[in-house]
């Protein structure tokens, strides 16, 4: 056990976490450069490679012959960098004793560097600071050293200067992992306690659970039990994770590996849960288990109503790999049958949508995302509303509370004014500003989550020329003057356009939405009135005048086929529209409300 080191790498997006991981794998001979088809081995989903973020975490074992002459087993546990997955991050951190903190030599400390660092410090990890990309001309090594010093209170000589691309500093990192990070504690003879920090679904084997054995020893054939579900299973296969699963038959305290126990439902193998022996269970579970709760909700509908069953099976399959996705069927008068899905955050939502489209070939329409509101009725009872259309009528609402987050924005000082204006527009409550160095400010706001799940990030980037970085953390629920805004087409409410907004913004939002819809809904055979209303009170109104003419007064002679084909094409176009009452609404209209920008 003295020869084991468990560690992770934390970094802001694009600061080089994956390239550093690759170099470590190469240097330890875990993978040859030739095998390295892609330069980022740990990110094996298409999507991850494109986005440059690790979405699903993995672990890998390396063997390193250190300069002290001993051989060490290094378990690198990969962490998703994004706040949406902060619980998963915290669990994988809990499986480690140390963390390599990677900071880009040109970009310096960013919002995610800090949020992940705090999680690591909370978990009691030894931090090894690394400045990466030092060979770039734009590197400002001394400034970044200063930022890191201020942040973690280390000495300059503890900071490793590296360039994963140029293979600089890799040995130093490995030596620091061996020398500075403590070997794991834990008695292999005590009753089994192993932390689940991830699971993936294998179509043939069921759930493959990634674990860190904290105490005791796990052997194949053991009757085991998941603490929180209480369900017993037989350990069919136990091993470590190298480039592939390597069956070892047992895992002792301190080590990291996988367990296959014939579990068909990923919900039985929840991240954060403890694996113990069914025969001699440990007295208590490892600390820190919690149910992850979705924060962002959105309706997901098939583009063609006939594809509903297809979508259902695609979501079910996707969920096998992503236990944090929750969904339930819902119906919309405008969109038909679909699902209300709950996501950990915005990125998670985008990933799920993209995976449904790319991996499962679904054509979907997603509705405007919303948060979960806590609504107190006049009678005193409290309901949770995750879909605007289930909001109780105006007269029955005594109070509405919404989730607030602590938003942390790091930005060059010249953009502080822009950022503050943006946050104020989004109902932010200013907390404080600190300066990482004379050129960069760290601004904190309390903000309603609902205000940041909608195009906030894009705005943030555009108002700071891309320099601002941003992270958030859930604070609490706070009362707000919120109302449900409905969109009516010729008097009929289109549920997919309903949203819950702050009363002060309802008029403005309603106006924008009406104008947008006027541009997107084609002329119909009759005039269409577009209204935005709170309850029965209309706050904005637009209209689309009736179509004047749609007929080709042409001589076709006997060529009826041609005319028929033209009309069949028109007909196909109509099939792609959604109908509310007699009004046909093109799909772009549903998508366009997702990108409502001032025009």
């Amino acid at each position, binding site marked *: 056990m003295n020869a084991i080191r468990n560690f992770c790498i934390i970094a802001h997006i694009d600061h080089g976490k994956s390239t550093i991981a690759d170099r470590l794998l190469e240097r330890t001979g875990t993978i040859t450069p030739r095998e390295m088809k892609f330069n980022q081995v740990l990110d094996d989903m298409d999507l991850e490679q494109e986005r440059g973020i690790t979405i699903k975490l993995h672990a890998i074992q390396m063997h390193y012959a250190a300069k002290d002459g001993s051989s060490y087993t290094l378990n690198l546990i990969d962490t998703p960098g994004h706040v949406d997955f902060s619980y998963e991050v915290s669990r994988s951190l809990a499986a480690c004793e140390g963390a390599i903190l990677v900071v880009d030599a040109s970009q310096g400390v960013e919002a995610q560097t800090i949020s992940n660092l705090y999680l690591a410090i909370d978990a009691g990890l030894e931090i090894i600071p690394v400045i990466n990309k030092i060979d770039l001309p734009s590197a400002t090594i001394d400034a970044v050293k200063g930022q890191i010093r201020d942040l973690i209170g280390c000495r300059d000589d503890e900071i490793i200067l590296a360039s994963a691309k140029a293979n600089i500093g890799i040995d130093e990192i490995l030596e620091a992992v061996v020398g500075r990070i403590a070997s794991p504690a834990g008695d292999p003879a005590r009753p089994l306690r192993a932390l689940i920090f991830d699971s993936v679904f294998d179509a043939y084997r069921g759930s493959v659970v990634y674990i860190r054995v904290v105490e005791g020893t796990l052997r194949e054939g053991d009757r085991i039990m998941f603490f929180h579900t209480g369900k017993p299973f037989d350990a069919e296969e136990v091993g470590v994770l190298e480039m592939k699963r390597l069956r070892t038959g047992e895992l002792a305290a301190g080590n990291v590996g996988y367990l296959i126990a014939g579990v068909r439902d990923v919900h039985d193998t929840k991240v954060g849960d403890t694996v113990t022996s069914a025969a001699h269970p440990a007295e208590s579970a490892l600390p820190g288990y919690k149910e992850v709760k979705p924060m962002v909700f959105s309706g997901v509908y098939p583009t063609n109503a006939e594809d509903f069953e297809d979508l259902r099976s695609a979501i079910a399959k996707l969920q096998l790999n992503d236990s944090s996705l929750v969904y339930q069927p819902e119906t919309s008068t405008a969109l038909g049958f679909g699902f209300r899905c709950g996501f950990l955050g915005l990125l998670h939502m985008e990933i799920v949508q993209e995976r449904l489209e790319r991996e499962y070939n679904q054509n979907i329409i997603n509705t405007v995302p919303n948060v979960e509101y806590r609504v107190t009725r006049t009678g005193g009872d409290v309901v949770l509303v995750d879909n605007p259309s289930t909001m109780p009528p105006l007269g029955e609402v005594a109070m509405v509370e919404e989730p607030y987050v602590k938003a942390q924005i790091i930005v060059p000082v010249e953009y502080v004014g822009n950022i503050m204006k943006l946050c104020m527009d989004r109902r932010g409550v200013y907390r404080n500003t600190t300066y990482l160095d004379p050129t960069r400010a760290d601004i904190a706001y309390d903000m309603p989550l609902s205000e940041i799940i909608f195009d906030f990030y894009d705005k943030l980037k555009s108002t700071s020329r891309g320099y601002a970085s941003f992270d958030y953390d859930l604070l609490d629920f706070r009362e707000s003057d919120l109302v449900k805004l409905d969109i009516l087409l010729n008097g009929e409410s289109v549920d997919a356009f309903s949203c819950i907004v702050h009363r002060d913004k309802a008029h403005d939002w309603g106006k924008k939405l009406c104008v947008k819809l006027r541009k997107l809904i084609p002329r119909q*055979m*009759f005039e269409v009135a577009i209204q935005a209303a709170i309850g029965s009170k209309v706050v904005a109104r637009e209209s689309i005048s009736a*179509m*004047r*003419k*749609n*007929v*080709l*007064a*042409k*001589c076709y*002679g*006997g*060529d*009826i*086929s041609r*005319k*028929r084909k*033209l*009309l*069949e094409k*028109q*007909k196909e*176009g*109509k099939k792609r529209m959604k109908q509310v009452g*007699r009004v046909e609404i093109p799909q772009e209209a549903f998508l366009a409300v997702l990108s409502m920008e001032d025009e």
Partner: protein
Amino acid sequence: MSSLYVHIPFCQRKCVYCDFYSIETVSLMGTFLDALDTEIALVGPVGEGVSFDTLFFGGGTPSLLAPSELERVMRSLRSAFAIRGDAEITLETNPGTVSLEKLRQYRSLGVNRLSIGIQSFDENELRFLGRIHDAAEASRCVGLAREAGYGNVSVDLIYSLPGQTVGEWERTLSTALALGPDHVSAYSLIVEDDTPLARMVSAKLVSPNPVEAEAVLYEHTMAVMERAGFEHYEVSSYARPGFRSLHNSAYWSHAGYLGFGPSAHSFWAQGNGGSQLRWANVPALSRYCGSLRKGELPVAMREEMTCAQLCNERIFLGLRSSGVDLRRLGDEFGLPADRLALAGALVEDGAAVMDRGTLRLTARGYMLCDEIAARMMV
């Protein structure tokens, strides 16, 4: 009701907007007529036992046929098909290609209806369209038709030329009406792909009228024609009572027809109770003649109609012309309930009237005919 169509694929000069198949090499007429004879003879057995009610010579410019040439075609047709003695026989005629004598001879060969392609009485417009005649010649042609004894004369007009004002169109329309035609076809100028007009548009030499301008001109046409006592019985067709085109009505009522000549279309039921077929000849004279010299039919497209296609055709053809018999349609194909609701809404909106189960569009409905058709189709 059964019909015959013969496509004469020659013009002295192609008009800028026309996308019907036609070439200017009139000297190939003899070659074409040889092939046409072969085609008629080959197809003849298909029409066995059927008597034909209408015959239409379209083009191109059928009035380029010398009377002797038309006589030869008529002889072939009559030997292959039973054409009723009272059949409507129409010949498309272009001003500038006929004399009184020629029209008389056509008449003696059985032609009893002339469809005169006038298009406009505005000299600038005629030049723009690429017509070979002027306004005076057009008027004279209608006079000659009457003098030659034709009791059924139709004129074709085109409106919505780029920048055309209501006043300009009004002058053409009233000039035409003053000539006392029995039938008027008024088409809106459509920019078709691969025409000189389309090239002028893409070179920004002309810009097509906006929909709003087209709408105003169309409304004006319908109002004027109604006042003049014409029945508006199809999107672009107006007839004095008793003078509807039987041939075109056959197209629109799903009657069978056999077409001859390059690019001609046919619609025919296969045997007794067999499936319905549409086919079309190659739109190229060389290939047309080549096939027939080998004794093969020059068919380029052939489709066996599905039930849905037939149903949809019935719907849009009916809507474009004198109505859809919803009850019959429902019996034959089964119609979704929401289509009946739509029909009800159309009547309520004044876009259609319901007459003993037949849904017929009003002037307002004709304006939106394609929209309505696309909604009604299954």
